[in-house]
């Protein structure tokens, strides 16, 4: 029997599920602890108590928001040497140029800019300054900086410069951690470099955290390999993933959407994940979240890498409701819902109180909301429906009706009928969809490249082969690989029918 454990470490709760073949055999929800590990150990103990078979799971997948929080809260960040390869171009905009000053001061240890890089068609811009790189590597070593981010102009099209730089660093400074930007992002030097810098400053924390996860697993008597889930709904082995913490920035919402797809057996749908503070709306395509093609800010830093395209609304179970004039949110009582909401004896009118008064859910003391005017309750529900409907409409990519899957602890807020929606699906275990999504994760490969003078079909076929090779290198079984996303954009002002093509494939983990 195939047994997998999925764990989602959120800001409020740590959820764990045991998946046996294609069924949820056990599911638990425990509070997240400040050290993270204790929460995981407790969740695993509760899971094993429910289903002793959990001990013989063949794989454990963890999704966490730990690294995003570290950037947002400016804590546990390492100091980094930035190496930019691309002079003479870009000299006026050095690494860290558009970072918030407080974060740059914490992270920036050394900035090196060298000649090198490529053109959009793969030609070298100028020869790579290998000698300068060697001298810089020695300086970095002498300064005791343990993590380096390397970004070269057009490295997604030709990674030779970054690879050579990494090789020189490894020779001169064995053991130094090197993040190469082409592994993380797409075209857009500053945004890709920013992703590499963020990754480099999180690498030490990522090592510690994955080791703590591994210990928690061993302490629970589970011998299975540990995987970390990524922004795109796939996994990497923990020992590989610890080198790429930025890949897990958005793994929480992604896992929710993947879990929703699995639990509902729908591959094409919208997913509405209602939490305590926000509602995330995303779009499933071939069972995976559609990805954002635009700039995503993390802790004030502009990045451009694989993230689900999400619309976040200020609507959750803890969202405050104002009476005169009626207003829903945007602030929330958050995790203090169980103290401050009316039904829990508090004095703040929240969306949960409205839902209880309307009979959508039975929580706390219903008598405490009996006196709420029916007109107020109705008007608030109309407003909530309007917020969800508008969000849904924004996330749709065409005008037709689409099915919608409701997940998350606040999914009772999603009305059974919505404009633009063919049906609203409520599924079992919807409150732990995120942990389910972690448990079912696969392995992916992606290519984003400019092709010239090829037909659209040839360009896509070429990109697809390269993406498949990447997936296999990351641990996928070639026989199970599927294309999940194809996108092409003709480029203005470039010669020879230039076509930017992006292909993403996924496959099962090779046994």
């Amino acid at each position: 029997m195939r047994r997998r454990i999925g764990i989602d470490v959120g800001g409020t709760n740590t959820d764990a599920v045991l998946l046996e073949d294609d069924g949820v055999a056990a599911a638990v929800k425990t509070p997240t602890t400040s050290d993270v590990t204790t929460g995981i150990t407790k969740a695993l103990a509760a899971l094993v108590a429910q289903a002793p078979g959990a001990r013989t799971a063949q794989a454990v997948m963890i999704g966490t928001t730990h690294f995003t929080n570290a950037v947002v809260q400016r804590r546990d960040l390492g100091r980094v040497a930035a190496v930019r390869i691309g002079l003479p171009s870009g000299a006026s905009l050095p690494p860290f140029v558009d970072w918030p000053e407080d974060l740059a001061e914490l992270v920036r240890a050394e900035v090196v800019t060298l000649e090198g890089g490529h053109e959009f068609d793969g030609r070298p811009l100028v020869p790579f300054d290998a000698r300068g790189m060697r001298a810089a590597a020695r300086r970095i070593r002498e300064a005791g900086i343990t993590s380096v981010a390397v970004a070269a102009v057009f490295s997604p099209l030709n990674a030779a410069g970054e690879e050579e730089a990494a090789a020189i660093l490894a020779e001169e400074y064995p053991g130094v951690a090197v993040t190469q930007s082409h592994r993380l992002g797409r075209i857009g030097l500053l945004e890709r470099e920013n992703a590499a810098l963020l990754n480099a400053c999180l690498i030490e924390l990522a090592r510690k955290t994955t080791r703590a996860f591994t210990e928690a697993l061993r302490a629970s008597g589970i011998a299975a390999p540990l995987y970390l889930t990524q922004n795109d709904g796939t996994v990497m082995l923990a020992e590989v993933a610890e080198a790429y913490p930025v890949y897990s920035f958005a793994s929480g919402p992604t896992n929710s959407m993947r879990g929703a797809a699995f639990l509902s057996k729908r591959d094409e749908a919208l997913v509405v994940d209602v939490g305590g503070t926000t509602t995330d709306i995303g779009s499933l395509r071939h069972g995976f979240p559609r990805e954002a093609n635009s700039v995503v800010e993390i802790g004030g830093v502009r990045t451009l890498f694989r993230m689900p395209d999400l619309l976040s609304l200020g609507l959750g179970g803890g969202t405050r409701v104002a009476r005169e004039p009626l207003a829903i949110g945007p602030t929330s009582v958050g995790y203090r819902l169980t103290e401050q909401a009316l039904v829990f004896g508090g004095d703040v009118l929240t969306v949960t109180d409205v839902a209880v008064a309307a009979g959508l859910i039975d929580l706390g003391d219903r008598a405490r909301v009996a006196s709420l005017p029916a007109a107020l309750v109705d008007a608030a529900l109309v407003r909530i429906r309007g917020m969800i409907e508008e969000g849904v409409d924004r996330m749709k990519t065409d005008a037709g009706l689409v099915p919608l899957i409701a997940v998350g602890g606040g999914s009772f807020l999603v009305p059974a009928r919505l404009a633009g929606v063919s049906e609203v699906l409520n599924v079992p275990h919807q409150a732990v969809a995120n942990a389910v999504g972690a448990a079912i994760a696969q392995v992916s490969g992606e290519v984003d490249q400019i092709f010239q003078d090829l037909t659209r079909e040839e360009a896509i076929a070429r990109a697809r082969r390269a993406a498949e090779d990447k997936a296999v290198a990351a641990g996928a079984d070639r026989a199970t690989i599927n294309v999940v996303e194809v996108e092409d954009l003709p480029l203005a002002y470039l010669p020879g029918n230039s076509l930017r093509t992006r292909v993403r494939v996924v496959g099962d983990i090779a046994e």
Partner: protein
Amino acid sequence: MRPVTADEIESLAIGAWILGTGGGGSPYLALLNMRQAYRKGVVCQLMDASELADDDLVAVVSNMGAPLVGQERLTDPKTMALAVTMMEEYLGRKFRALMSLEIGGGNSIQPFMGAAVLDLPVIDGDCMGRAFPEAQMTSFAIHDLRMYPLTLADVRDNAVVVARAASWKWMERISRKACVEVGSIASTCKAPRTGKEIKECAILGSTTKAIGIGRAVQAARRAHRDPIDAVLEVTGGIKLFAGKIHDIARRTTEGFLRGTAAIEGLDDFRGHTFRLAFQNEFAVGWLDDVPRVMTPDLICVVDTVAGDAIGTETLRYGQRVTVLALPAPPILLTPKGIEHVGPRAFGYDLEFRSVFA
């Protein structure tokens, strides 16, 4: 002549993006360059054209190339300065000031980047009053001024002088070829203009206008007022339509991004549809299949809530957008102007009628 503050450069970036009418390229990287320069103590000067002597020379500058390449090669004040000094060497004369080719998009800030290095003032004006896709779509071309010489420089110390060209089209073809060869991104200094030509043929005051639009948007945001109303107030523009994008088609032909976008009406416009055609910039708009607005009137598409301009490359299904028309500079509305930049210049067999007529 007056100093330009760092805040005004920020406002310029916002206003110029709106005046880009969907094209012109994002001003973000140029703005980052100016923030760097101002941090180092640079303060640029804005000069009124009336301060020019008739025989002064002005460098008209712009970046040329593919926006996507610009995202990797970035943009650097030094290459802009190089194109300008090369022109000075070629002419054997010094420039008195720099001016933008187009106030719409990133090229609005390029003369400031060059000026920061060369310590020259920037003329308050341009020769499009917006953004346009082709070299002959300028007030200088409308006035039949000479289109050569042109200098083009890249970061590697490659530099090209196009000494003569038989027509605007030839100038575009030759310089485009050189631009592609150096990696599809280059700084250019267009045909130099005398003070007299600037005073008589440029679109004056457009820099101040762009700054004013940006400042109005920022002030509205701070006061939680509608930034779109603020834009209309300062420009005398008209709100044409508001709705949601429900269809979008793009293709590149002959190096341009062409396509159409359809908008489904919301609120006051419910039940109506608006269709936009673009060639890098928005060219024509139809309300319920009747032509409603056309170039050279400025057609601007902005985010209905934030008031930020939306480029033709970033239009997406589901976006809530408002379509605005802003008045075009008078020179573009003359019969000769319409010939150069009217709907027929973009392949639409429509008789030009301004929404402001």
